[in-house]
């Protein structure tokens, strides 16, 4: 289970070259996953050449100077690729969330406010309330499946691509700014008081 996630093999903190290799060797993976595997394989040596960092800190982003990083994130945010990922995410998530919240609230109000309607029998012992209740269960399972599928097919690939690009950019920025890539500075960022 652990290793079939292309992202986990590619994490900078853990991507030892030996771990990244099997990902490249897999020939018939879906396209995004394969990209992830190649990326991981190429990125790993770069990470490995950085002096040892304490576990848990993130060398790629954290070792850059904050100013350089801020520019990079703004650039990435404005890029067409990122805008597309964000649009795809929101275009699915926001209408879906609004729809099922309304559907649940409507069901709740009907069940408490109009028990007579819910008691109307449909077939045998099944009444409107039972059907609506089971439909709630069905909605949850269906929407879960649809969301997971949408994310896997439409969002994971481009998002992963953007992740490596962003991390490459921050790494390059760090090198240009000539900031020593020590992990202590990284550990303070993102967790410590700024």
């Amino acid at each position, binding site marked *: 289970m652990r290793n079939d996630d292309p992202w*986990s093999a590619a994490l900078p903190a853990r991507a030892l070259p030996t771990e990244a290799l099997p990902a490249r060797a897999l020939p018939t993976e879906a396209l995004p996953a394969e990209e992830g595997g190649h990326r991981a394989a190429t990125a790993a040596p770069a990470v490995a050449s950085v002096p040892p960092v304490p576990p*848990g800190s993130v060398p*790629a982003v954290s070792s850059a100077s904050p100013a350089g990083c*801020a520019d990079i994130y703004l650039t990435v945010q404005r890029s067409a690729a990122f805008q597309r990922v964000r649009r795809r995410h929101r275009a699915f998530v926001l209408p879906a969330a609004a729809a099922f919240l309304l559907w*649940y609230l409507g069901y709740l109000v009907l069940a408490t406010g109009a*028990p007579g309607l819910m008691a109307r029998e449909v077939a045998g012992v099944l009444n409107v309330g039972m059907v609506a*209740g089971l439909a709630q269960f069905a909605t949850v399972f269906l929407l879960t499946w649809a969301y997971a599928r949408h994310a896997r097919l439409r969002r994971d690939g481009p998002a992963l691509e953007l992740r490596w690009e962003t991390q490459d950019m921050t790494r390059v920025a760090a090198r240009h700014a000539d900031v020593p890539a020590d992990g202590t500075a990284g550990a303070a960022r*993102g967790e410590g008081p700024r």
Partner: protein
Amino acid sequence: MSDGHRMLTVLLFCAVVVATLAITSWAGRGRRGSAEEFFAGGRLFSPLENGFAIAGDYMSAASFLGISGLIALYGYDGMLYSIGFLVAWLVVLLLVAELVRNCGRFTLADVVAARMRERPVRRALGTSSVTVSVLYLVAQMVGAGSLVALLLGTRDGLAHTVTVLVVGALMIVYVCCGGMRATTWIQIVKAVLLLGGAVALTALVLVRFGGDLPGLLSAAAERSGHGREFLAPGLLYGGGWTARLDFVSLGVALVLGTAGLPHILARFYTVPTARAARRSVVWAIGLIGGFYLMTIVLGTGAAALVGPEEVLLSDSAGNNAVPLLAAELGGGAGARAGAVLAALTAAVAGATILAVVAGVTLAASAAVAHDLYASLRSRRPRTDRGEIAVARAAAAVVGAVAVGLSLLAAQLNVAFLVGLAFAVAASANLPVLLYTLFWRRFTTRGATWAVYGGLVPALALVVLSPVVSGSAHALFPGLDFAVFPLENPGLVSVPLGFVAGWLGTVTSRERPDAARHAETEVRALTGAGAA
């Protein structure tokens, strides 16, 4: 329950306790002692493992025994509960899980602090997280006390007190010695036990009825004494409009509260990536949904086979319906198989309580050490070792406080306490989280106002509700300052949290930090630089 059967139940309880302690010491071996390890279990759990752990964290004894008991007594209205608990996971899956995994390290406050001024935000969210966790802990421990007394067949207060003390001591040991890794494995084992028990009992019920589900429903309706009304809403929440509105309020709190529960959010940090977080939620939804579908069979099975009179006789809230059903399926309480099944069910319920309290205590200790302590201290850089030491001490203190409150609140209704914890989580934690993730102009003042603007009304409305004063079964029956008619504040306090966040943002002079918003958004959606 005869003495021999009581002995069996106690022995099985002890086996559960020994097993969980063994897990704790096994998981504690070779720990590196980093904060990553203590709060997030090294972030190396697989989606399947984490899915089971989430399900274990979420399916409390209140769901297993309480909801099936409610279904056994009130039919359809009991089912309304389980639907609320399940639908809530869509909010978590769609709006929260992946983004939180990418933005934070250990706690909810991490996500918000990435965009805002750190200290005020950490102070606010640390406070609300600890409040929610303590409320949730009190609910679980009060439930544990009455449950154990119930299962052992004693009605004196001593069994309740001893249970609360033992559960409190155990949960402190789990958290202090094992951290997130031990807590997660305890959740996984418990989820497997609970689901296994539910599957076995459901199968036995279905076999008894020859797989005839409509037959089961008809038999339950007939024996319940309510006829067809048993299968339609209205038996439990059919009273006046206040009662109906109260249930809508509870429903809103359940659905929006799950995404703000600190111990649920902490679970997403135990997997390596956002994709793994998503897949663990998908697993959890499958497991939790299947479990609640089974509680419907168990509840109607108890109504049909045991009958509501006997369920009510054993416990007025119906909490004993499933153990009674187990005994009945095994050939009656007198038969050996029936006694063994009932004892096994009781032991599974015990494992459930231990696992849930461990998860919540860990989340509370993380909020104290990582957020509150850090925001109060000077600007010296924190060390992992110091933070873990604080977390261990905090776990002990939070555990002690929860034990004390549980002994005081022993008479309060467990379902009400759980609903309250969800309402506070929905009012104080969810608005700030959603604004941070989805609103570009959100500011620090908006964030703190959103937290306090949800937390304070939620708590104040409870104080002014009929739970605290003005009714026969209130905390202070002699006094009457109940001006708010509903028991659950969610319907009012959740919108107030959202309004306060909006108001704080539009009135603040501070410009939203475009660079840090860009960083949060890019990190949330791509996972760049995720811990």
